[in-house]
């Protein structure tokens, strides 16, 4: 039977080689200071065996001696160092240290990854809700070869968050909300120089009861895919009159991007703390 660690580079590929470059003296998956007491041959998992994979079995109190009960591997140490650098770099490029303000008198409420913008306009309450999760469209230039003289680092695109957003309009004294689901255009390959899409578009429109927290599928939902263009333009004008226009849409991208970046950095910090667990 082959020693397990001889198999590892084939399983983990170049990642292992990279990490090994950072810590060449010790085997990757062994706890830091405790010498391995088993021949490597016995560390592989046999089919049907009740024995835990030896490499992943906790060694009682943490092998690195901190006594926290968690697992601290060389991989974890390298991971924490990587995260320290990543957090430092992300904070360096952070465009907004605090969230940018929207023009037009919108109040902002943030609950984790969900943000709400609220505005009262002469007898109406307008709420715009969006979530920064999955709001960064994939970049398509990852497969391009760098052009002559261009460094690879210069190719990294500026990430922007373009979340779908839902506009709710409620007139005073009513329990009926007009709800409009709005999207930013999706960048398609080959369309970068011929972008003739509206800055944002309305995808669906529906009435929902203000008492219901969930979207009711039994309420008629108007899809704009095959909608009369004249009606569509009236809906866009309706939104613009309530402050949801192209300026709003551009500012929302700035706000969402800033919020997403903030959440990303917080996540990295939490991840560092979790992995470090000391």
């Amino acid at each position: 039977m082959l020693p397990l660690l001889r198999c590892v580079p084939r399983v983990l590929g170049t990642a292992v080689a990279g990490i090994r470059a950072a810590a060449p003296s010790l085997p990757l998956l062994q706890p830091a200071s405790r010498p391995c007491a088993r021949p490597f041959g016995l560390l592989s998992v046999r089919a049907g065996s009740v024995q835990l994979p030896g490499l992943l079995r906790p060694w009682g109190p943490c092998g690195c001696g901190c006594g926290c009960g968690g697992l601290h591997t060389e991989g974890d140490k390298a991971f924490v160092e990587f995260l320290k650098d990543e957090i430092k770099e992300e904070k360096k490029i952070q465009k907004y240290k605090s969230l940018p303000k929207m023009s037009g008198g919108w109040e902002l409420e943030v609950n984790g990854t969900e943000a709400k913008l609220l505005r009262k306009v002469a007898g109406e309450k307008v709420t715009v809700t969006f979530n920064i999760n999955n709001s960064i469209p994939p970049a398509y230039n990852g497969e391009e070869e760098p052009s002559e003289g261009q460094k690879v680092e210069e190719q990294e695109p500026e990430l922007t968050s373009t979340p779908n957003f839902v506009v709710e309009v409620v007139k005073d004294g009513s329990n009926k909300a007009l709800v409009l689901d709005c999207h930013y255009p999706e960048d398609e390959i080959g369309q970068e120089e011929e972008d003739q899409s509206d800055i944002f578009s309305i995808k669906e429109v529906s009435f929902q009861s203000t008492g219901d927290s969930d979207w009711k599928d039994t309420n008629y939902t108007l899809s704009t895919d095959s909608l009369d263009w004249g009606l569509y333009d009236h809906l866009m004008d309706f939104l613009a009159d309530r402050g949801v226009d192209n300026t709003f849409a551009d500012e929302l991208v700035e706000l969402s991007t800033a919020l997403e970046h903030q959440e990303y950095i917080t996540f990295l910090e939490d991840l560092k703390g979790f992995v470090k667990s000391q």
Partner: protein
Amino acid sequence: MSLVLRNLQRAVPLRRARLREKVQAARRALGVQRFDLGVVCVDNRKIQQINRIYRDKNTPTDVLSFPFHENLKAGEIPQPDFPDDYNLGDIFLGVEYIFQHCQENEDYYDILTVTAIHGLCHLLGFTHSTEAEWRKMYQKEKQALEELSGHTGTRLQPLSRGLF
């Protein structure tokens, strides 16, 4: 057929429904309502970029036309063989430029209408590179605007007035 309207700018607040109504009227006045048309509203930066790329003029302007049917004789209405070819092309309206040049006593949407008619005439093969060509275009714009004025009561003048 379809009039596709796009507003790519935030420099000037735009009433899409009102602009659509005006351009629809312009299409009817020119007898081309059965053709698809694209109208794209852009700011000075964008129209200057398009003007630079396609006309080698690094300056904003009021309208740029991109015909679907090239080489039409002035005023020739296309007679396509296929439904997909019932398309006149696209007009880019420099709405910011137009707004900046709009006089106090002028209605902005009337000026947009006049500009759209000028752009539509270009899509129909009219040009104003020579005086003779300009005369034909001026007459066509005047005719369309007179028909519009008959419905709206306004007296609008062609964009190409004063070019020669």
